[in-house]
């Protein structure tokens, strides 16, 4: 049994809604519990507005959660004051989606990568310079970029710099928020390979946020699927991509087009109708019920609890799946 690096329990995050919504609140994250084990990559997938980034920002404490708890290496950081949090910050790092806004345009690459080292004052100037150089090399950049400014680099190169900044302190946990979404296919491949290599050699754990299922399948050991601020299904890669149970997960898997005309044209697709409701007033009961082909009365009234599908931790929140499972158990 490996230890959990990150444990999130019943996380809830509300924002004040925009003016015209009548003082109600945006329920960006409603009830999220997840664990990231030592050395694992957990994928957090879901569509726009499902609350993935908000979960990530709560974990790195850029946001203070409305409710719930976040534990990092056993320590509760949910409401930790920033002075106490500071030393821990060297162990949790984040990579951002936008390669353009995530680097200070007025700093050189070496200053950017050195910043975490300076912030924690753990290294002498000379050590720091050496470490910066090694880290930049490690992310596949040549030494020549050290004195460049971000606007002299391509999107892929910038994302590597962002990765170097996040990894220079050798964190235990990396939150990667859509780090390849803004990149072209040919550049994306390089970053994904790099992430795999670095994770293997450095052994950090990773919460990898993405809306791209094939990226999640390529990279992640386990995958959690989010819909409207909740995790509706979580399981190992094989369970989620090979034996998904939740209607939403199944629809997502069917909706993502395969880059192969033969397969793509021959497969059965059952795509959910409609669009996700607003996070300001989510529907009562199961959040998927207005769009779900399986929904019955219970689904509109009562929110489903977690149902264990397998011993290994394949969990689904769906009344209908639960009923099916109960039936199967009864039969055997």
């Amino acid at each position: 049994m490996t230890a959990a690096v990150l444990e999130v329990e019943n996380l809830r995050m509300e924002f004040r809604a925009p003016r015209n919504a009548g003082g109600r609140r945006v329920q960006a994250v409603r009830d999220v519990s997840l664990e990231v084990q030592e050395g694992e990559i957990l994928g957090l997938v879901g569509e726009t507005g499902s609350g993935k980034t908000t979960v990530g920002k709560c974990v790195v404490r850029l946001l203070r959660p409305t409710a719930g708890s976040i534990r990092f290496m056993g320590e509760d950081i949910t409401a930790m004051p920033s002075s106490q949090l500071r030393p821990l910050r060297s162990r949790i790092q984040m990579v951002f989606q936008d390669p353009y806004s995530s680097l200070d345009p007025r700093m050189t690459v070496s200053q950017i990568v050195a910043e975490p080292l300076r912030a924690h004052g753990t290294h002498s100037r000379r050590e720091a310079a050496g470490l910066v150089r090694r880290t930049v090399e490690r992310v596949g950049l040549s030494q020549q970029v050290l004195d460049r400014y971000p606007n002299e680099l391509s999107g892929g190169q910038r994302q590597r710099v962002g990765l170097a900044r996040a990894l220079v302190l050798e964190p235990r946990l990396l939150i990667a928020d859509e780090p390849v979404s803004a990149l072209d296919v040919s550049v994306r491949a390089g970053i994904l390979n790099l992430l795999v290599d670095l994770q293997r050699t450095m052994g950090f754990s990773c919460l990898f946020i993405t809306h791209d299922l094939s990226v999640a399948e390529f990279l992640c050991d386990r995958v959690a699927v989010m819909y409207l601020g909740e995790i509706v299904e979580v399981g190992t890669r094989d369970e989620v991509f090979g034996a998904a149970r939740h209607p939403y997960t199944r629809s997502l898997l069917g909706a993502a087009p395969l880059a192969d005309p033969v397969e793509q044209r021959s497969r059965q697709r059952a795509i959910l109708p409609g669009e996700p409701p607003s996070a300001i007033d989510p529907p009562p009961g199961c959040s998927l019920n207005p769009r779900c082909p399986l929904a019955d009365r219970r689904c509109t009234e009562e929110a489903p609890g977690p149902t264990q599908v397998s011993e290994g931790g394949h969990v689904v929140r769906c009344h209908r799946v639960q009923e099916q499972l109960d039936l199967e158990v009864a039969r055997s």
Partner: protein
Amino acid sequence: MAELLSVQDLQVRLFDRLGVVVAVRDVSLSVEEGEVVALVGESGCGKSVTALALLRLLPPDAQISGRVTFQGRDLLQLPLKELRAIRGRDIAMVFQEPMTSLNPSFTIGNQIGEVLRLHKGLRGQQARERASELLSLVRIGSPEQRLRAYPHQLSGGMRQRAMIAMALACDPKLLILDEPTTALDVTTQAQILDIVRDLRQRLGMSILLITHDLGVVADLADRVAVMYAGSKVEDAEVHRLFAAPRHPYTAGLLRALPRRGRRAGDAQERLLEIPGLVPVLRDLPDACAFAPRCPRSQDDCSNQHPGLAPCEADHRVACLHPEPIVAGAHP
């Protein structure tokens, strides 16, 4: 099948702050009646400019040369007045930015009505009925109500549907879709792709589909043209292109793609990386633009610009040293 649109040696030079941009270099294309042709390539390779050039929608200082024949007439030579009659009626386009191509201060109904009035002379009740018919065509529920909505009251997916509905207003023969699903979620994307597939079957129009998403291409296209740095590098029937790409760039793209079933944990699976950067589209030398990044490049690649040449039936490639033919890969 008859050829509906034929583009020959299209060349587009644009001017920006730093000088000339050769955004499109000698691109030839052909779209037959009822055919879906996909134009794919990475960001900045000239896909949108190509489409805009067909309809002469580029800034006035753009230099366009070549021939664009649509139903026997050269669109590049046509007087502007006649071209205007073709735009929107025979050839409709859905632009890349759904947000900026709808006017925020008019309702959807007003905007569709305007097109109907302009090209079909429909007004009042007639126009309203046709407009709501169009919205149902793109599966927008309670269309009468939606006609009264302003663009900002609709979600991204709804706006994209409204755009498509507007493009369909005059039963165009050719529909140009520029990245119709790029800004959308997969579920919404699948819904839109479904609509387009269905429309095409029902209305039999030709579609020029611009996208960078190979999944979308695999889903919809009959034929695929791959662009790189302003040039068309490969052109083939869709199954053929995916099964047996001949240009190293196309092959590289396909292998760089994380796909379902590919897993980093399995047998040291890695994605193929295409090293280097997309070249800047200024003073490109007379050489293969992909050569500096190409694993198959040889000396001669850097001293001549390979033209597009047939390599097999219905398959053309612009490469001096194309990928070997994959045995048994024929669909």
